[in-house]
């Protein structure tokens, strides 16, 4: 094949169909931003449903928010925000070639994500104990009006968010392996950057879910 199509002095981690490392990097980065755009539109359906039913059943929404545990929600917000910080520190250490520290920060991020899920599980368990199930299974009695719809949206939104947290934990573990075996490095760090962006989005979705479901009066 034509040699000019791919300069042979490229590092071996640049795929042959890219002209340069820079082209590969900017393509991967743009791909991630577009992926995040579709993630936001995916969650937007839930936000829209929240707004529509808040409009229809304002009283239910007020008394529903009272039932949710604000302290647990706040604690989880702190945990997730901290995990975003540790993710940034991981990428910074990777770029400074402190590989061991970078891997350590990633595992701390995964640990914080796990902590978030544990708190969430306690919240769910407590609600189930009170008979607060989504939709038609609602037996709680403490909330006025269409409580089933409120908790239907609550469980779906926080559940889908938690699913994103679980997927993020898997991806971050994979990233830690790749850094350790040298396939993600200070020069070829776009995967770390992209997963960092994903992790911040997961954080950001929670930043919206927490006040909407727990706080807004």
């Amino acid at each position: 094949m034509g040699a000019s199509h791919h300069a042979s002095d490229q590092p071996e981690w640049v795929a042959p169909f890219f002209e340069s490392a820079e082209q590969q990097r900017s393509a991967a980065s743009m791909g991630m931003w577009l992926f995040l755009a579709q993630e936001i539109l995916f969650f937007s359906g839930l936000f829209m449903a929240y707004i529509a039913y808040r409009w229809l059943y304002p009283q239910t929404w007020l008394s529903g928010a009272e039932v949710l545990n604000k302290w647990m929600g706040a604690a989880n917000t702190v945990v997730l925000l901290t995990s975003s910080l540790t993710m940034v520190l991981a990428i910074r250490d990777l770029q400074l070639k402190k590989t061991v520290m970078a891997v350590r920060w990633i595992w701390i991020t995964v640990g914080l994500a796990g902590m978030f899920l544990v708190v969430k599980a306690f919240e769910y368990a407590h609600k189930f104990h009170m008979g607060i199930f989504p939709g038609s299974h609602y037996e709680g009695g403490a909330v006025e009006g269409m409580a089933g719809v409120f908790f239907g949206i609550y469980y779906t939104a926080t559940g889908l968010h938690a699913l994103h947290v679980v997927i993020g934990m898997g991806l971050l573990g994979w990233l830690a392996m790749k850094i350790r075996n040298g396939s993600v490095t200070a020069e070829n760090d776009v995967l770390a950057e992209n997963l960092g962006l994903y992790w911040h989005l997961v954080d950001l979705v929670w930043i919206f879910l927490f006040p909407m479901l727990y706080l807004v009066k």
Partner: protein
Amino acid sequence: MSTETEAVEAPEPSYLAAHRGWKSWAFSVDHKRIAVMYLVATTLFMIAGGVMAGLVRIELFTAAGDLLDADQYNRAFTLHGSIMVFLVIIPAAPAVLGNFVLPLMLGARDVAFPKLNLASFHVYMLGASMLLMAMVLGSFDTGWTFYTPYSSTTVGPVAWALTGVFILGFSSILTGLNFIVTIHKMRPPGMTWLRLPLMLWSMYATSAVQILATPVLAITVLLLIIERSIGIGIFDPTLGGDPVLFQHFFWFYSHPAVYIMILPAFGIVSEMVAVHSQRSIFGYKGIAGSSLAIAIVGSLVWGHHMFTSGQSIYSSVLFSFLTFFIAVPTAIKVFSWVATMYKGRIQFTPPMMYVFSFLALFMIGGLTGVVLGALSIDVHLHDTYYVVAHFHYVMMGGAILTYIGGLHHWWPKMFGRMYPMRLANITSALVFISFNLTFLPMFVVGSRGMPRRYYEYIASFESLNQIATVGAICLGASLFVTLGYLIYGAFRGEIASENPWNAKSLEWQTASPPIEHNFHYQPTVSSTPYDYDGAEAEEEQKVAEASK
């Protein structure tokens, strides 16, 4: 356009001959092989969806319900609609023609993410099998629109179909993402945005809609699956949900989805009309910009599906206005295509026949769409055969037939062989005539009040329905002839040259069929691919001389 060539050492095998065995296809990351796999899959599904359409039309041959009972009829039109929409029209043009020509038009070796491209295909096949499982497992009869509360309460394998649609959405999103990044990041030296082939402008607009609208469908069907399985009360009115909210969610995707279907056709027509008239395209910027305008405004008109669903009259007025407004960018395109032909050297080739067919059918489909966008008229025409005729003129006459025309245009490039041209010309005329025979009568029965989705109807509509059924059978037969000669052409046809149509875009500057890595050299570009009268090259030269 100018190119820099380098000495070629030895002839290289084409992408078709480079590897052998089924694994070299099923796990190939070559965009051309992936396109051919999509071509085979969408064609098979098109036949399946066509058979369902045939059942519907034969049932409607007589006013009484005799061939199918009501339940079987409901299943037949549901499968026809969902197969054609989700498995054929949405993926066909981007995933077959887009995949094949997009990197070639950019002079690139592949799309930006080849593995993701292969993953899109596998995800597509997985979603398709889930959707088809619903057909095997029992009575899937909600219509392709899955309206609640019927879809949230009916028994039957609706959840299978919904899961299939959810998975298919991923395939669509990933393809769109791949194309946008490829167009942004992998253009060859000299290809500025205003030298982009118009096919790529429309693929860009299509991909933007795929990325931004499809996730809303994903959350919608996911919520419906959860509603069906545990009853969260989001769409079910007995639990406090609002079924009209489902319609809003559904059409927020599914109206833009009709632009996912028609925008690639606009791109295909733009290429074909310029090449087969041997004339520079009229209004390049108008055509490119109107694709983006359609993508944007088309995302804001979903409420025109709900004029009779009890949405606020103020919303309806706004949606009606925007629906009228979208005719403006569309008309800019149609006038530009017609103006391109003026004083051109029009070649009566099969792709040009499909351009003529497109212009006539799309005009009818588009203008009847404006009629339906009028609030008071829509109350009468809503859910009648007038709507059925309208969207078949756009979706089938506009999107599918143009996709088939595009196959005729790029077939010699894809397979290096030509189909029998004369037969193709005659068949394209037969397709056009039988298409009109099928769908024109539906405007008449529809405006007289024949509702859609019933397996029997009053006797006075019988003769027009019989014309439509005869037309449908002729249409099916003509399309089978088309399939036959295209397959014959791919294997046994005359060997085609690199550039049989004297086209100027980059895909015609490499071998037919292309080599595995597309080009032996890095192509460069110095004008739009429509510079037939040399005006742009002249301009370029003047600028170059002036700067000396």
